[in-house]
């Protein structure tokens, strides 16, 4: 019996498809964001406020995933940008092949910024690379501040944690400092922003973050502005 070293990542079919997508996004200069959260944390609301604030010529597009219904695509299509619904018919996450199929017929050369709204779930989407430049996790203040500890994978892999629904802070027993400390326990470098899609507090900061991050990606530098010390 002989033992030989074996190197390289264990790639499954999804990783291969994601690597192809990533190369294609890079070739066309598309900055891709994968938004992940529990159901009801405000991913669609965030995209509504985001699209609403963009001028008509902005080269942005959205893919939105759900198990059933095209309700989210209908909500998001009102802003005049290309939006497609991915209905997974039971699957609890999006995978790279679903993204490839959903992009058919779109010219990537016409898109600078692509938001992918994942299926509401803090577990399964964590493991599926979609070829994105960065993952962003949303945590609403109506959830528990211990979520980063309960679901460490997604907080570890996300570049930014967006604390949403902060207008509700006076009414819920959510300790924002504890939530941030918990997220940093899992991922010390995670960036943090807070916003309310109802009052629009923090919206400008979010929009600036995305623009700066997209810019740094096209310059092939991973640095993005620090939001919270």
């Amino acid at each position, binding site marked *: 019996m002989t033992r*030989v070293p074996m190197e390289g990542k264990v790639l*499954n079919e999804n990783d291969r498809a994601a690597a192809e997508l990533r190369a294609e996004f890079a070739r066309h200069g598309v900055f891709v964001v994968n938004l992940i959260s529990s159901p009801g944390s405000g991913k669609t609301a965030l995209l509504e406020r985001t699209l609403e604030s963009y001028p008509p010529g902005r080269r942005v597009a959205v893919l939105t995933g759900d198990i059933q219904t095209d309700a989210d695509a209908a909500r998001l299509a009102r802003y005049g940008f290309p939006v497609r619904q991915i209905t997974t018919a039971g699957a609890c996450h999006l995978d790279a092949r679903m993204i490839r199929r959903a992009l058919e017929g779109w010219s990537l050369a016409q898109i600078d910024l692509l938001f992918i709204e994942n299926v509401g779930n803090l577990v399964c989407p964590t*493991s599926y690379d979609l070829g994105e430049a960065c993952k962003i996790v949303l945590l609403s203040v109506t959830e528990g501040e211990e979520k980063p500890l309960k679901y460490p994978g997604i907080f570890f892999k996300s570049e930014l944690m967006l604390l949403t629904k902060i207008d509700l802070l006076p009414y819920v027993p959510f300790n924002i400092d504890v939530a941030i400390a918990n997220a940093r326990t899992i991922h010390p470098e995670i960036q943090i922003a807070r916003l309310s899609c109802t009052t629009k507090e923090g919206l400008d900061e979010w929009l600036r973050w995305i623009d700066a991050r997209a810019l740094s990606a096209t310059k092939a530098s991973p640095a993005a502005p620090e939001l919270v010390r």
Partner: protein
Amino acid sequence: MHEVGIASGILDAVRKETEARKPARAVKVGVRIGEMAGIDPQSLAFSFEVLVKGSDLEPLDLAIEPGVADELEFSYLELEVP
């Protein structure tokens, strides 16, 4: 949820690796899995066993070693020369 895909990826790589080393055959493959890799080792071991059974690679063992963070990498391959 996706451990079958991972197991199938491991088998593909083992097949490729042993192809170049014929007539030796693989008896064991070692992989490193980090705690943040999002892989359940038990579920992976089960998927691996099911996929190996009846395949050209049977018998083949899987050894799972603890890795760092979200690591999901090959470690070694044990070969038997007939």
